[in-house]
């Protein structure tokens, strides 16, 4: 909702013209940070119950949203497979029309077993099906490729049933199939996301200068974003954190309207990640660091940068001076 729409809803609320559903919607909108004073008053008037309910709904929506994306993804896969079936069937029918009496069999790579044994296993047929000698069975044999595809399609109907070790609450972008108890989710994706976000908003990476010696294996980055509603950096970071299962190794998430803190460990690559965002003088300082798990990461560098930022008006003016 835009600010204008929210204000309209507030006016309607004060006139007693809103329905309970509209008031719930208003409460959800008022969960935003940095609200104008008048809107904060409306938040108080709506009451703890309404705000708590809105927060509950927002958390539940955040958990459910990725599932919808997963369904979309699987629907795309199903559509592609249907296309393959179509092409496969056309090829088969074309060849079948030419030689009614001679059944067509795709050439199958045989590891060690007979052709009929490979029917149950998903072996990919060669791209060009060729004519083969009729088998002993009377019914025409469908090319292997088509069979395989049909079997797969049977398993991917619209109501996709997640695998036992696949958590539907995980954002598909961070999901990789694995046999681990908690599905592996690469924390590095957050850094990619931040880099793209910064690039989109034309925010350049700041330069960290530490007075103390730093372990060369520690990689840190810092950005100073403008604290604007359009960017909604805190909201986006929180959304990103929602991609990850809370059972992910090293998972620590804490946030308020002033600060955001998130930590994860990548046990496959033996790395630890940390992201800190803080509101300072109309800007948001976003700091990310990545280091091997056994390295103790000091926050001194970040603290130095923070102190410097609090004493200077902005990173831009600082770099201009240089």
């Amino acid at each position, binding site marked *: 909702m835009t600010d204008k729409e929210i204000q309209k809803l507030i006016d309607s609320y004060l006139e007693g013209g809103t329905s309970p559903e509209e008031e719930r919607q208003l409460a959800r909108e008022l969960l935003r940070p940095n609200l104008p004073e008048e809107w*904060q008053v409306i938040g108080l008037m709506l*009451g703890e119950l309404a705000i708590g309910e809105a927060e509950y709904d927002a958390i539940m929506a955040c958990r459910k949203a990725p599932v919808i994306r997963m369904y979309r993804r699987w629907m795309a896969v199903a559509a592609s497979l249907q296309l393959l079936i179509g092409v496969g069937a056309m090829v088969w029918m074309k060849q079948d029309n030419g030689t009614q009496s001679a059944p067509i069999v795709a050439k199958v790579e045989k590891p060690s077993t007979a052709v009929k044994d490979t029917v149950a296993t998903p072996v990919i047929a060669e791209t060009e099906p060729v004519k083969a000698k009729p088998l002993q069975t009377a019914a025409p044999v469908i090319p292997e490729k088509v069979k395989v595809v049909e079997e797969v399609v049977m398993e991917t109907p619209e109501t996709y049933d997640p695998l036992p070790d696949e958590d539907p609450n995980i954002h598909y972008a961070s999901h990789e199939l694995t046999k681990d108890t908690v599905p592996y989710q690469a924390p590095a994706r957050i850094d990619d996301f931040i880099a793209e976000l910064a690039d989109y908003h034309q925010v350049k990476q700041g330069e960290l200068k530490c007075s103390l010696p730093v372990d060369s294996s520690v990689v840190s980055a810092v950005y100073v974003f403008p604290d604007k509603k359009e960017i909604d950096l805190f909201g986006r970071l929180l959304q990103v954190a929602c991609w990850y299962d809370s059972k992910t190794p090293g998972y620590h998430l804490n946030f308020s309207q002033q600060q955001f803190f998130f930590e994860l460990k990548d046990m496959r690559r033996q790395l630890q990640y940390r992201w800190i965002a803080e509101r300072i003088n109309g800007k948001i300082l976003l700091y990310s660091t990545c280091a091997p798990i056994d390295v103790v990461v000091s*926050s001194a560098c970040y603290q130095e940068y923070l102190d410097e930022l609090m004493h200077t008006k902005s990173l831009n003016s600082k770099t201009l001076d240089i």
Partner: protein
Amino acid sequence: MLKVALDFFGSQDDAEDVAQDAMLQLWRYCEQIDGDRNVSGLAVRVAKNCCVSHYRRKRAEQQYCSATNSTATGMAMQHQADSSDSPQELLEAEDTRRMINEVMARLKPRERELFELRRVEGLSTQQISEQTGIPKASVSAMVSAARTKVFIELKARMKQ
């Protein structure tokens, strides 16, 4: 209530804890309102509210425990955990609650009742009209008057 909590936490233990808290809170609300009314809508709202409170508390505890075990992130985490549940914030919340109660006390009894029916029970104008016997148009007018008074008063107090 248990179902609302179970949907949220996915754990029977947490859900039962929350349902217990929610029952207590609902009991307190029922003392304030007419307990004979159907309170199922209010029960759901209270349960959702308790879920969020329990979630915040649990998260803060987890953060604090992990902060004390990790020296590298300890300071930052402890600061976070403290600030999320600090006594100062609790005091501020209590002050706000008191301020709202004082403002509400200035409303006429009928206005206050209608205001609370919307605010606490989340009833629609139609439902309030049915329960109180006041025509819908009058309910809207009285709710509007009550809200405007509360809004002006709260805004003035927040500026002080």
